[in-house]
């Protein structure tokens, strides 16, 4: 099974640049690159999907800036899963015959803003009952999941470090990655403590960046003579909570539901997935998500990662770009899970290329609150 809708082009704005950068500029750069990659003109776009914390009414601003007048607008925002959900919405609109060519975009200049003002634009605010407990939102929320996980499964803190170490191994292979040096457990523990058990090197980077996807029907792609397309085999979304008081289980997430749904839609299971890209805002994230998606039994993913199975040369290459921990993290990483999946499936991943016919991307928003799982095939 698949949706007969494809990703036909991708664009990425660089993570690093010396000049002052505006969110609209990095988004436009990624969008223009994506249309060129798909062999279309900007005016061919008739649907726009975007999410960013740094532009008011972003679909309108981006459409005008790109000089286009789309007839389908979607600025769905639920954190880092948003751009994956946009894919689901684009598939539905294309299959319903409402649109032909969708542009999905994300961009942020968190690093520029941090340097200029000392603060960075928040993509979400703590629920009031959490804010009054004086946490380091959202880090504390994920730290609570990590503490519970280590306690519940009686596993060592080294398993959290293993996630950042694996990310650094992939980052070393990606010339676009912000962090290219290899990390060790000792270096992670030597970085400043943030919220126990997390140190700063358990937390994602703060960068600029933007990404864009051009999505259309398989038929349309064929008519344009596009050879290197990636098929969207499944998309599934869920939310089970916003804040931590309502999260049902701190060591099991909504990815249980999105994974099961996505694999059912696609007609294949975890064993047939060649590479996974999981939103790694913090080191605990890929551990919980690998278990919930069915790649590991509960309590086992930390050891799986520490044993090297997700590192270069491992049997389940994960976060091959370096992820949010080593490659880039401009506020929300969701679109990069798709971009890297597409790069791997098209054989365009350079030194970090792995053999892949199927890929899984997983986005997370809020404090493990929204989940979106996407399966892609070639």
């Amino acid at each position, binding site marked *: 099974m698949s949706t007969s809708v494809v990703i036909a082009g991708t664009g990425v704005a660089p993570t690093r640049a010396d000049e002052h950068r505006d969110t609209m500029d990095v988004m436009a750069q990624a969008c223009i690159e994506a249309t060129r990659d798909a062999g279309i003109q900007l005016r061919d776009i008739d649907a726009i999907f975007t999410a960013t914390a740094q532009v008011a009414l972003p679909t309108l601003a981006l459409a005008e800036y790109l000089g286009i007048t789309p007839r389908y607008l979607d600025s769905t925002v639920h954190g880092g899963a948003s751009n994956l959900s946009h894919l689901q919405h684009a598939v539905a609109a294309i299959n319903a015959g409402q649109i032909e060519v969708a542009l999905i975009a994300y961009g942020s200049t968190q690093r520029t803003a941090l340097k200029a003002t000392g603060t960075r634009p928040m993509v979400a605010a703590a629920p*009031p*009952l959490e*804010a009054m*407990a004086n946490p380091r939102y959202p880090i504390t929320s994920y730290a*609570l999941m990590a503490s519970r996980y280590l306690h519940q499964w009686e596993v060592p803190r080294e398993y959290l470090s293993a996630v950042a170490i694996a990310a650094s191994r992939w980052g070393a292979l990606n010339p676009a990655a912000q962090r290219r040096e290899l990390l060790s457990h000792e270096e992670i523990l030597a970085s400043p403590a943030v*919220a*126990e058990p997390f140190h700063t090197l358990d937390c994602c980077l703060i960068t600029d960046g933007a990404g864009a996807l051009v999505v259309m029907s398989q038929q349309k792609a064929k008519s344009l003579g596009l050879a290197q397309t990636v098929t969207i085999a499944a998309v599934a979304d869920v939310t089970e909570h916003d804040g931590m008081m*309502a999260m049902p289980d701190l060591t099991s997430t909504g990815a249980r539901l999105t994974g099961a749904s996505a694999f059912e839609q696609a007609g294949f299971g975890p064993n047939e997935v060649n590479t996974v890209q999981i939103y790694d805002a913090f080191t605990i994230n890929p551990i919980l998500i690998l278990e919930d998606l069915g790649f590991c039994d509960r309590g086992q993913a930390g050891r799986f990662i520490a044993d090297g199975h997700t590192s270069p040369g491992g049997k389940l290459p994960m976060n091959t770009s370096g992820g949010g921990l080593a490659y880039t993290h401009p506020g929300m990483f969701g679109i990069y899970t798709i971009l890297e999946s597409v790069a791997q499936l098209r054989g365009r991943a350079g030194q970090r290329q792995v053999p892949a016919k199927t890929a899984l991307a997983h986005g997370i928003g809020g404090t493990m609150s929204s989940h979106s799982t996407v399966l892609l095939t070639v």
Partner: protein
Amino acid sequence: MNMNKHLRHYLGRAAAGELVFPRCEECAAVFMPPRAACPACGTDALGWTPVGGAQGTIYSISRHSNEGSVALCEFEVLNTGTRFYGQLVGPGNQQAQIGQPVELTLAECTVSGMDAVDQGQLIPSIKLVEN
């Protein structure tokens, strides 16, 4: 989430020295945080139940250097699987561990600049119970 009317009620009662949790009048579910409808049965017929001195245990904890500890706690009175998130106040909070017994209490809010909550206002919090 915004500072909605249910949160304002909850915090107003705490500021007056009274600890309450939301309780469903249809199915008797007691849950956190306060909301517009019962998460167990869906009704909007909701009231409040007194929970002063409620006993619980630490489900997870994160210590913040020099800034106190934040804990997520299980309380028997919360009969729907939801938990209480709060600052762990009083002696021993920097050494507290998962599984330790705690009690619901009132403590002064340490955060400034919040909507509808002043610094120093009494808010629901958690303290360790001496064995």
